[in-house]
């Protein structure tokens, strides 16, 4: 076993880990050693081909098809230098005050999060896309909302030189999306923070990260690891977990550290989502242009959010319910399709959690509560109204049976689209906003960390990612994650002086 020593080791390089890496970079100038450990590869821009078959295995855990334990939902999360920020769409939302207040975490103040998130929005070039760059898929959403009595809002997005290739979720081939792989990690590395890729943290021991560095598989995408393949014991003054809402609880659970809260893994939420499709009588611009420019926020009143979206052929096929001629007909109408992503604002409930199997691999247990199903159904009905108001001639709704809804059904949408047709295992549900598992709170009986991500009972260990959320955020989460991670980094700086950690 190789031995190394750092002052701080950060596990994971996504929204949380990348933020911590950059925030700690000034420490390097003071002689401290900071390491980021990332299990995924570092991809070169020219390797981002925009093809589902190549990019999904290169960038996502389980090729983007990570299934919950009962197989009824697919979870999408990244596994690369930059984590899920390499594949996210870049919509950049401020933390909602109503939600943060509702969490009731002692010491967590909305205005503090908001201020930090605004700073990252500036760093990441967050802005509204020029009207001339909006495609018809997005414009029809705005028009449909207006005619159906809703007010769509424009998403601020974090792009620089976006060409509108519509491939954001397969990694931006133009380097336009300002994820941590593009902004925070390169800045941290320039300042002397080390990043080791293809390095999986296997377990934690007291102030030690045990990790395995893998060789680049033959023919695989990405650069080889910065370190020689093999197993390493890395001693650290402070360890920061930023492996995401699945990775961080899983690592803690397989480490079995004495004194850890029994809440680890609990409280997982994920904004379960459906992809809905409306067929128009004419071709529209849909697979060109930034895919996600507008949203409709009904979280407070109706428990859902609608977002524009556009997916790739296989992802679309998989998410449309059914099979055979009706499914094929819709696929052949691809150029006439408008798409809406509906997200339910689920709540943390007992049983929805991360565990690990005997091999230490994460297992996600998730059951749809009645409230979540009802929110998805309400969201689907609202989307159907929006599609028809925008001129669609048919709407595909997974919670309708048969799933194709015609304009003639408009008057009886409540009957056509209903909870009784939401049959788990039959219809596709997916989620990309994974939250919770190491929630913040008062003490070990109700949470895993305090409001600065410090793990209760383990002063050398902090968490700085989406797993900190005590409940769902009810809006796209990355800026809030960065704001939380920035607070954690602040805590690390004070830990280092308190713990008097030294590097060797």
């Amino acid at each position, binding site marked *: 076993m190789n031995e190394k020593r750092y002052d701080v080791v950060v596990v994971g390089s996504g929204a949380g880990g990348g933020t911590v890496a950059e925030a700690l970079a000034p420490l390097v100038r003071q002689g401290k050693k900071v390491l980021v450990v990332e299990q995924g590869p570092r991809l070169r821009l020219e390797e981002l081909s925009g093809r589902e078959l190549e990019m999904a295995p290169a960038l996502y855990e389980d090729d983007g098809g990570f299934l919950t334990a009962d*197989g009824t939902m697919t979870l999408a999360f990244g596994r690369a230098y930059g984590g899920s920020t390499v594949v996210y769409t870049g919509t950049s939302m401020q933390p909602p005050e109503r939600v943060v207040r509702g969490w009731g975490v002692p010491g967590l103040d909305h205005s503090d999060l908001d201020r930090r998130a605004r700073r990252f929005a500036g760093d990441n070039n967050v802005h509204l896309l020029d009207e001339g760059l909006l495609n018809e898929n997005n414009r029809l959403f705005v028009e449909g909302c207006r005619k159906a009595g809703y007010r769509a809002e424009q998403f601020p997005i974090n792009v620089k030189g976006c*060409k509108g290739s519509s491939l954001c979720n397969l990694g931006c081939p133009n380097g336009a999306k300002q994820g941590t792989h593009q902004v925070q990690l390169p800045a941290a590395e320039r300042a002397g923070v080390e990043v080791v890729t293809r390095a999986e943290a296997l377990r934690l021991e007291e102030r030690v990260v045990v990790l395995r560095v893998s060789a680049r598989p033959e023919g695989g995408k990405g650069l080889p690891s910065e370190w020689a393949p093999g197993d390493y014991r890395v001693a650290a003054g402070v360890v920061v977990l930023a492996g995401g809402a699945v990775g961080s609880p899983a690592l803690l659970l397989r480490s079995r550290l004495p004194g850890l809260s029994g809440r680890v893994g609990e409280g997982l939420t994920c904004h379960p989502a459906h992809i809905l499709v409306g067929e128009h009588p004419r071709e529209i611009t849909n697979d060109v242009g930034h895919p996600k420019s507008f949203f409709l926020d009904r979280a407070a009143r109706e428990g859902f959010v609608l977002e524009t979206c556009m997916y790739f052929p296989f992802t679309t096929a998989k998410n449309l319910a059914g099979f055979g001629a009706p*499914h094929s007909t819709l696929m052949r109408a691809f150029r006439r399709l408008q798409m809406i992503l509906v997200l339910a604002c689920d709540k943390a409930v007992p049983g929805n959690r991360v565990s690990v199997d005997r091999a230490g691999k994460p297992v996600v247990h998730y059951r749809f509560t009645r409230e979540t199903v009802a929110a998805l159904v309400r969201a689907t009905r609202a989307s159907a109204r929006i599609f028809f108001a925008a001129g669609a001639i048919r709407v595909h709704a997974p919670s309708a049976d048969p799933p194709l809804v015609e304009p003639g059904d408009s008057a009886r949408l409540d009957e056509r689209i209903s909870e009784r047709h939401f049959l788990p*295992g039959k219809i596709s549900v997916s989620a990309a906003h994974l939250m919770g598992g190491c929630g913040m709170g008062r003490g070990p009986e109700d949470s895993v960390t305090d409001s600065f991500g410090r793990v209760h009972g383990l002063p050398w260990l902090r968490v700085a990612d989406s797993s900190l959320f005590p409940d769902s955020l009810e809006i796209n989460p990355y800026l809030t994650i960065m704001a939380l991670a920035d607070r954690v980094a602040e805590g690390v700086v004070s830990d280092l002086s308190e713990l008097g950690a030294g590097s060797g």
Partner: protein
Amino acid sequence: MTEMVESTFGPVRESFRALAATIVPEAVSLDADAWDEVERIVEDGLAARPAAIRRQLRLFVRLLDLLPVLRFGKTFRSLDPSRRTAFLLGVQDAPVLLVRRGFWGIRTLVYMGYYSRQEARDAIGYRADARGWEGRR
């Protein structure tokens, strides 16, 4: 990668193709090379999955082929297209979650094999590429 791993659907190829052609009716007109491509994509996609899962999927395809004997007196492969569809509609709505999930898994693999091919992308008119708007003007 596939050479090193035992083929998942090789031993049940005819049943798999009958299912695939019911799930995506256009698959009936695929030539031998196109079928090979569909199957290679599916096998590659499964290569990294645990052997137990691959065995379960193969068993499920076998079951789907045999179960219609109880209702129609014929295997799935021997049914006409409308009966194949009727049978799979029943499987899709089965009261048992495990059965619905199994079918969802098979249809997902078929869609992956079929729609990841360039030919299918072209056929449905999907054109996204890195040049974005520049490529369309």
